[in-house]
């Protein structure tokens, strides 16, 4: 950070900063009790900003400086079980190392918030952005919200605490933002007032349902499951509870975004955003920071008389099935742009899930998978213009289609 130690950004009304610092500002506004950190590109500057804030006394939190991501998540589970608000951030190989305690967190219903500064996975060796890491963990049980802009990172990071800690949800949230393009992209952000954020979030209620607390002694995560006794029914009960929490989150995410807009004047699409979808014959589906260039391409095509629109996914977990099906019902053809690969389906994962949503429209339509932006590659307006043209020309033949690799010839 380049500003002086006594220059409290949390007291400012605006700043020009990178996406990782915007996330750190959002975290500081949420006043976590403990921040556990381990650096990994392109996430490192996020926890460096937080470490600096704590060192400067601008954030009153304990810094847990541990030996790796596995210890990060284990430590934070203890903090949450003791009632503390937590934060960490990771990506790529970091979340791979965190995986074992990471997948236990939703089942313990611990309302943590963690940034996923999305990075492509190894191998081939790379250190750049891509959404493969987040897509690999999409069935881990964490809520996933993908940001489009630096401002949305700040706002969503604060909102994530409200969503996670809602009594009807009680699930951990990953705020995902694209490595490189958003993590290091610098722009002006508006910073909400601390008192407003305090009032918006309210007091933290983290461990009312499961706790490490001498006054409420309990066994945390006792053995369930198996084929006898109460094992099968208890395991199913907890699994159904997790699914219910996820479905409740669809409502809570909408409510929280609406409340945020009313209070701070910035309305972000909570689940999906329909962009120029009215009277569109066909549409692109996007997720994350690529959406800006895609909207530019849609605007250009619209100006040239093309009836194209765009559906941006913000919340990917829980999957906004009803909203997605309603949007898809408006178009006749769809092209889905992924920044990751579903190896088993020879397509992108968002494409696969779009096909799932199409089932609920009762009307299969021609669809195609575009894969771009892998390992830091840029998806430009020109790439999107090509995707628009290909989608426009789609016709129904009922056979699986090869994906289009947008950066194949770059």
């Amino acid at each position: 950070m380049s500003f002086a130690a006594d220059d409290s950004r949390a007291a400012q009304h605006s700043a020009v900063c990178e996406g990782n610092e915007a996330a750190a500002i959002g975290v500081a506004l949420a006043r976590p009790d403990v921040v556990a950190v381990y650096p990994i590109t392109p996430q490192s500057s996020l926890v460096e900003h937080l470490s600096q804030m704590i060192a400067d006394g601008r954030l009153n939190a304990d810094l847990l400086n541990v030996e790796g991501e596995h210890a990060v998540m284990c430590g934070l589970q203890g903090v949450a079980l003791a009632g503390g608000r937590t934060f960490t951030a990771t990506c790529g190989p970091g979340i791979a190392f965190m995986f074992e305690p990471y997948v236990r967190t939703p089942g313990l219903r611990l309302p943590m918030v963690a940034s996923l500064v999305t990075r492509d996975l190894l191998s081939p060796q790379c250190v750049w952005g891509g959404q493969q890491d987040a897509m690999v963990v999409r069935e881990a049980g964490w809520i996933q919200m993908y940001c489009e802009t630096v401002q949305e990172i700040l706002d969503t990071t604060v909102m994530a605490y409200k969503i996670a800690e809602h009594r009807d949800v009680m699930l951990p949230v990953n705020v995902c933002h694209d490595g490189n393009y958003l993590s290091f992209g610098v722009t002006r952000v508006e910073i909400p007032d601390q008192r407003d954020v305090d009032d918006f979030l309210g007091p933290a209620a983290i461990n009312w349902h499961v706790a490490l607390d001498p006054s409420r002694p309990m066994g945390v995560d006792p053995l369930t499951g198996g084929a006898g006794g109460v094992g099968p029914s208890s395991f199913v009960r907890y699994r159904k509870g997790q699914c219910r929490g996820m479905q409740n989150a669809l409502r809570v995410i909408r409510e929280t975004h609406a409340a945020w807009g009313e209070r701070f004047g910035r309305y972000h699409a909570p689940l999906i955003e329909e962009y120029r979808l009215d009277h569109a014959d066909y549409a692109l589906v996007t997720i994350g920071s690529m959406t800006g260039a895609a909207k530019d391409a849609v605007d250009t095509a619209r100006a040239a008389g093309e009836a194209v629109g765009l559906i941006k996914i913000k919340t990917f977990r829980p999957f906004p099935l009803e909203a997605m099906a309603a949007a898809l019902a408006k178009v006749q053809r769809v092209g889905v742009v992924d920044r990751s690969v579903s190896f088993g389906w020879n397509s992108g994962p968002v494409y696969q899930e779009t096909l799932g949503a199409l089932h609920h429209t009762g009307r299969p339509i021609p669809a195609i998978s575009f894969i771009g932006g892998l390992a830091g590659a840029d998806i430009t307006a020109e790439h999107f213009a090509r995707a628009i043209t290909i989608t426009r020309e789609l016709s129904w033949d009922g056979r699986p289609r090869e994906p289009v690799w947008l950066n194949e010839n770059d």
Partner: protein
Amino acid sequence: MQRQSRDHFDASTIPDDLAPIATKLSTMLPGDWRSMRPVIDRLKCVKCGLCWLYCPVQCVVEKPRWFDFDLAVCKGCGICAQECPQRAISMIEEVGR
């Protein structure tokens, strides 16, 4: 076991489909599934206390001239017999339990 099973707080206020928790202790003890049991040779025992230190379930109990075992708790792992420098502990098979 009555004492161990008492309710410490009202867990019924917590939804039973959130985090898995247990608020009553199980009545099952490690000795319930033991296949071998330790037997002490009282003449060989010098009360060095190594068995007491090594026992993973803390079932070693002190007697006036030797150490003995709480067989309700002992799980029969045999670590005490392995570690005893006096070879005062032997493991015998449980039969007819």
